[in-house]
């Protein structure tokens, strides 16, 4: 919560599992298993997706999904309707719509074994595609809020990784790796030499927070789940010189 989160090994392993899952459904199951919450990934339908059905993957019980579809709940579900309009992550208790129909929807959900609490992360990528990542849990506030507060950084990360997995599944290809900035390459080169963020900060005359932010950006741009994976990837892409040459000279 303070600055860039220090990610535990378990969370890094979870990110790797999500990235390596053979499909989005399996990735959702992995997140469910780790956090004991239901997971929904919903890619927005846009004119250019060329799909006649929305791309939704969920760990919800089949019976609930059937009931949801049968009752046309997708037409009134505020998580979907308002959620796709929202930009900042939100707790379901922040949703403004409160009609009798919606109340019935939430009551039904609980009857089918879902939790009373939910949290969603709206996603957007450089191509402007939008998706919604949601979790649903049995906890109630304040435990739920504490849970979200403690894990939202990791959840947002996972949501983006899941989004990229989904793009591969839907479009057959992922986002092209984004160009790294000179400073990002510099930070990564120092990591490759075994330096930690605070040391790099001193070398570059920046705060450790800024260095960590650059490294987070590198990881995201190279679509990696850990910074060591990002170093390997950067070497493959010849952004960093391979270690065999004895150094990590920056190429460009």
């Amino acid at each position, binding site marked *: 919560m*303070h600055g860039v989160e220090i990610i535990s090994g378990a969370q890094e392993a979870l990110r790797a599992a999500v990235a390596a899952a053979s499909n989005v459904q399996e990735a959702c199951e992995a997140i469910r298993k780790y956090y004991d919450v239901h997971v929904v990934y919903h890619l927005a339908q846009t004119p250019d997706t060329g799909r006649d059905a929305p791309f939704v993957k969920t760990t919800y019980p089949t019976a609930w999904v059937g009931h949801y579809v049968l009752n046309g709940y997708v037409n009134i579900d505020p998580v979907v309707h308002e959620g796709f*309009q929202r930009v900042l992550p939100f707790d379901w208790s922040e949703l403004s719509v409160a009609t009798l129909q919606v109340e019935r929807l939430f009551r039904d959900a609980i009857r089918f074994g879902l939790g009373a609490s939910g949290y969603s992360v709206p*996603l957007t990528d*450089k191509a402007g595609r939008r998706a919604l990542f949601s979790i649903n849990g049995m906890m109630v506030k304040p435990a739920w809020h504490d849970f979200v507060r403690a894990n939202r*950084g990791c959840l947002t990360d996972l949501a983006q990784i899941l989004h990229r997995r989904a793009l591969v599944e839907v479009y057959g290809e992922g986002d092209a790796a984004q160009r790294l900035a000179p400073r990002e390459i510099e930070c990564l080169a120092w990591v490759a030499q075994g330096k930690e963020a605070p040391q790099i900060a001193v070398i570059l005359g920046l705060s450790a927070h800024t260095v960590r932010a650059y490294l987070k*950006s590198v990881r995201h741009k190279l679509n990696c789940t850990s910074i060591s994976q990002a170093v390997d990837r950067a070497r493959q892409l010849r952004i960093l010189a391979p270690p065999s040459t004895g150094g990590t000279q920056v190429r460009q």
Partner: protein
Amino acid sequence: MFITIEPHQFSANQKLLDAMFRLRKRVFFDELGWDVPIKGDRERDRYDDHRPVYLIWCSDDRRTLYASLRLMPTTGPTLLHDVFSRTFGNDVDLSAPGIWEATRMCVDVEALRLDHPEIDLMRAMSLMVALICEVAVDKGIHTVVSNYEPQIARVYKRAGAKFDEIGRADGYGKRPVCCGLFEASECVLQQIYTKLRLSKPLLSGLRHTAQHHAPAFAVNPYAAQARFSGFAA
């Protein structure tokens, strides 16, 4: 009052948003001479069509706008990436969940003078920085990339903000423009509250971890004062 306006609230806040586009034209086009797209007396670019979040300071009846800025996730299309990279270079082009971009921060000095003569421009800018940090911490955003004028850096520092300048460009407008990476954390937010002598969060109904906040406020000698102490920067 300080509010966030997300796309699902745009239609309910049309007048405020319109006032914001007009203020932006006056500030960025007329005063700063920036190369920004103008339509009539409004400044509006394509990122405004990309469903950003606006952070707004307005009168309690939402009729008068005092200040505004725009917040966007860097995982999506961003202004600093597309536009400012020409002037800043690529170093400002960060992209990751948890890193957001704040642009077009501006203050309506006239409106402020009429309704809050005790608050000067510097204090107003500082309050907007406090607002960004508050929203960021509440939403799990750990870093904010933002542009500002060089002389404002001093004001932000004095307001308790923690940031590194990561780029500076001449020739974008009449004056140079800086780009900074701002840390958003509970720790920085507390520092800002203390420095600005704010006794409670700017956003009403903000669900803060009370145990974190209570001690900071309890020792604040200005806690009993009104939210705006008019402390001149």
